[in-house]
């Protein structure tokens, strides 16, 4: 792909990101950040892609670290996000105060 095509994709992705993410409520901003941490783990792909052709100890060593870093992001990010989101419950699920139900 040529650079201009890639830049087109980049700019469009920025607009999509702004549109979609500006609709996320404040309540979910912490899970949003950890989820984007997980998505950022995509850099793992760069490590996977380069390590095959890479020659020499140093390059391989650095790429193993990069892959480990990326994996920490992916695995840790998705897990911790799930842990947080699990805690966001509605009152009906915890049998809590009947404030939403009409009393008569």
């Amino acid at each position, binding site marked *: 792909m040529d650079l201009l095509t890639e830049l087109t994709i980049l700019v469009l992705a920025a607009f999509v990101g702004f549109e979609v993410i500006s609709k996320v409520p404040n309540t979910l*901003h*912490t899970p949003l950040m950890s*989820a984007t941490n997980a998505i950022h783990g995509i850099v793992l*792909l760069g490590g*996977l892609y*380069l390590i095959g052709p890479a020659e020499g100890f140093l390059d391989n060593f650095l790429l193993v670290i990069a892959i480990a870093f990326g994996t920490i992001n992916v*695995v840790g990010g*998705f897990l911790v996000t799930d842990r947080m989101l699990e805690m966001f*419950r509605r*009152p009906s699920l915890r049998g809590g105060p009947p404030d939403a139900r009409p009393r008569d």
Partner: protein
Amino acid sequence: MYTATFLQDPDFIRSLYIVAFALFIIDLRLMNHPRTARKGNVIGAVGMGIAVIATLLIESVGDYGLIALGIAIGTVVGVPAARSVKMTAMPQMVALFNGVGGGAVALISFVEYRESVAVGGNPELEALIPMLFAAVIGSVSFWGSNIAFGKLQEVLPGRPIQLPGQQFVNFGLLAVCVGCAIAIASGTESEGLFILILVAAAVLGNMFVLPIGGADMPVVISLLNAFTGLSAAAAGLALDNVALIVAGMLVGASGSILTMLMAEAMNRSIANIFKGGFGGGGAAPGAGDGEEKPVRSTDPADVAIQLAYARKVVVAPGYGLAVAQAQHTVRELADELEKRGVEVRYAIHPVAGRMPGHMNVLLAEADVPYDHLKEMDEINPEFPQTDVALVIGANDVTNPAAREQADSPIYGMPILDVDKAESVIVLKRSMNTGFAGIENPLFYAENTSLLFGDAKESVQKVLKEVEDL
């Protein structure tokens, strides 16, 4: 044989990347409601799985042993950390995640440069420029995030650390990065220069987070989040990988939005925050007018009566509540009040806590239903109809001086209008001023009474009194 070639077809692999980034967008889309967010997260994880598998299918990818090693190390470190981290420590966790993300990008760019030099000189400009950009931003965010982590974890002092002429040093470091990058881009083939870029960017990362005070951490974490995203997108340009480009840009957009929201919630420009040192200069005005103003202190029994006979109570929690680990006790108190027919809501200021949305997570962990957590704009019109506003461990975000005193350092910052409630009860440890060291007229208002003591103990006492009523 046919399947093998089909699976390794670059177009097939690219199609899988398209599926992957579409799933990331769906993930973020589902994040717009707590009900669907968890499903979204699973969809995002599936997208990531597809992207990784697609990459492993590429013909030139090899060294599976080393790949397995890297993934194993990452899993061994990441899984236990994610499972055991306390919700109060989420800001540190996210800072670390930002850091390793940026670090990965910097390493990948460096190796990519070395490899292409070994094969036959500098890469083409259209790969080289994003590579250099990724290296700088990646290195800045790795080191900056480490400092942010240190401050949040209190390994480093939370107060701003400033060196003389810091801004000149920072500009100098940036100039070194840009200068070396231009030298490489204009044809100089030098690994040394590349390393110099990484090192200068590393020092810059340290220097730009050190002067920022603990109260500004929500902005810093958001900004570093945006940086890591942009560095990943740049790495994507360098590697011709569309999944990296889109995913990195999504993260960049998210971090940028959060940075702007946080800066807005503190009524400060981003440039101003990075100049550092909130309240570092001139003593807070209003603090030194000498006279001892009277405050009304109250006791748990009185608070209990006020709360129990109210129709509507709004709790305004601040980071002090999390520090005292009082969130569960507060929820028990709210349950007890709701049993008596009192409506209890929580007013969450955008910068309550140490990162965007932190307070909401802490309260959700204490089993507070999310529809009781109200954003500032939503709850402010409700304060005039509120009988009791209960301020726990929050100070600056409830300071009416932000609305009324044009000479106040926080003038213009959006606040929770707790002072408009019929009566205000402030739970405070002592009469010390808040994080920003600014006097809060709320404490001296006629409808305000103060309950001194540790937040958790105070709430426990009030709870006991309510139960005994």
